[in-house]
């Protein structure tokens, strides 16, 4: 009994451009392959962090709902359907937190399904050299399953001291008239090493507790702040290299889309067999590490 990924979609064609448009295109692909009508979407969560013009209000998820035309005016045009939208953020692994939230609402019966969307674009919607993320749209359509598949266990950890290794902000002192077009990205040289240490510790605890020390796992899907992170992590966790699904070479670092993008590619390539266990690992700023065990 768990939350099951019914369908996913990714959008890689045109970037950089509006994150709302990117999410709209991706979400529409996703619900089309899922065979879902727009009006049946109960919940939209956006986990993307970087968006055009640094819009702080309304939630991006709301703008995505608007651009998709999902239950726009549910009180006057009442047909029994409505949709709720909000943004949930927690660095690159935010999607696992969103899945946990959707999982809770699916369990209580508050919703029948959830659409989780993400992508990160520089606020100027231009290619900016220092901006470390590539814009890849991702969408995940989630439902509840009683067949023993889906997510069964999660763990969410963050470091006991807030790390300044990765820090992004817009300053109200020196942004001039460019507040809508800039993003300060501070990344220390030690960031990846520190993140790897923290992730090894957290994911190590997770596999001991929930995944027979890793022997129950066939695939590892993790966020990829650089192209060796997945392999480095697997080796430190004493897991075979072949378990790591590595997509950093294909699209750079899609940041908050990393986990759904990698899952989508693995699924597309036919790597995932019914009953396979996937260890999802979302690591990022904070430091944070979230792990989820998923049965295909």
């Amino acid at each position: 009994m768990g939350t099951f990924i019914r369908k996913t979609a990714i959008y890689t064609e045109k970037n950089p451009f509006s994150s709302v448009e990117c999410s709209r295109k991706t979400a529409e692909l996703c619900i089309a392959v899922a065979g879902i009508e727009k009006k049946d979407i109960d919940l939209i969560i956006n986990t993307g962090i970087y968006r055009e013009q640094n819009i702080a209000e309304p939630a991006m998820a709301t703008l995505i709902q608007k651009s998709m035309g999902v239950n726009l005016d549910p009180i006057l045009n009442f047909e029994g359907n409505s949709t709720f939208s909000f943004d949930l953020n927690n660095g690159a692994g935010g999607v696992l937190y969103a899945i946990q939230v959707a999982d809770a609402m699916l369990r209580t019966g508050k919703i029948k399904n959830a659409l989780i969307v993400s992508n990160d674009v520089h606020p100027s919607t231009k290619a900016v050299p220092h901006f470390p993320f590539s814009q890849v749209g991702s969408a995940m359509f989630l439902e509840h399953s009683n067949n023993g598949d889906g997510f069964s266990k999660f763990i969410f950890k963050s470091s006991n001291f807030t790390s300044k290794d990765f820090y992004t902000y817009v300053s109200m002192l020196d942004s001039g008239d460019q507040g809508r077009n800039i993003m300060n990205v501070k990344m220390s040289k030690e960031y990846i090493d520190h993140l790897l240490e923290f992730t090894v510790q957290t994911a190590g605890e997770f596999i001991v507790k929930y995944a027979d020390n890793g022997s129950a796992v066939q695939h590892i899907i993790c966020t990829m702040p650089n192209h060796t992170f997945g392999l480095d992590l697997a080796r430190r966790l004493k897991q075979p290299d072949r378990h790591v699904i590595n997509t950093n070479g294909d699209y750079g670092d899609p940041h908050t889309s990393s986990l759904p993008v990698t899952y989508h590619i693995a699924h597309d390539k036919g790597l995932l067999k019914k009953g396979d266990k996937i260890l999802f690992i979302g690591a990022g700023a904070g430091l944070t590490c979230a792990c989820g065990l998923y049965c295909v």
Partner: protein
Amino acid sequence: MSKSRFESIGCYMPAKIVTSRELLDRMRTKPFFDIEELTGIKNRRYRSATEDSFQLGLAAAKNCLSNSSYKAEDIQAIIWASITRLNNVVEFQYEPSISICLKNEIGAHNALCFDITNACSGMLTSVFILDNLIRAGIVKNGLIISGECITHIADTAVKEITEPIDDQFASLTVGDSGTAVIMDQSTNEDECIEISEFLTMAEFAELCFGMPSHLAPRIAMYTKAVEIHTASVSRLPRYISDKLNKFEYAICKNKDLIKPIDFVIPHQTALKIMKSALKDIFNYVKTLDRFKRFEFPEMLTYIQDFGNTSSTSHFVVLYHALKDKKVKPGNNVLLLSHGSGIAVGMFFIRLGNLGV
């Protein structure tokens, strides 16, 4: 499946008071209406030169913990819910999450942390989320915090308004604050969140934007206030009455109660508008058979003193109403959420002896 409840509330209001008159005096172009007359807002609190969203939220979280039976290390989830994300006074922070900074500052090292953004509905969206996390048994308790240094948009409006009609006028109504609430499992049917409902009327998603100014390093908000009002007044009465009708058994508990709801807290925007909207809503409710003899609940507001505190508004009011003993254990309170999106929510709360 155990329901959730409010266990304790914390609040921090910055000391500095700025009157509506003072704001107007600073403006080169005056509005064609009297803000105090139109909104009922006399004063609002203003951040000091060293305060930011994080500091306001942190002070509220500490206050909440001091009112709670839980220690920081007992907290299982932390949700940060503000619109403004100012840390280090002037930095609008995207990563890491502010919830993690807060977790570490108070020492809640066992908590699952994330940030929620949903404009002025951010805190109640987080209540909706935490209610589900608790009812699903994923966590036993959690802390929701919002620190809003929202008067930055008022300062921007003062500087940037050049016409008597301008999308930045609504920005003059806001005030700074920090609030926090701890929720846990209810062990008593008389003390719980009985109903939590939310939807987004995304047709109107583009009627209010908060974002950096294009003129200077400032945060601004651009609001089509009349259009939002028009959209809402024709829809909220139907929404609220539909929900009260749907959940009448849970609200009335099969008794023919005349006053099942003691108090109502709407989002704090403008006094006259809040009063007239509630009148429309409850008149509509009275057309339902079940609610024919329904007596209007009393509206709670501190808008005169604190203005529109954005995502914290319901908790600023509830905290002060409990402190002032206007609201007491055993009272039933209806919280109505109304934020950009337009996100519309309704919470029916049975209050216990919660700490403030």
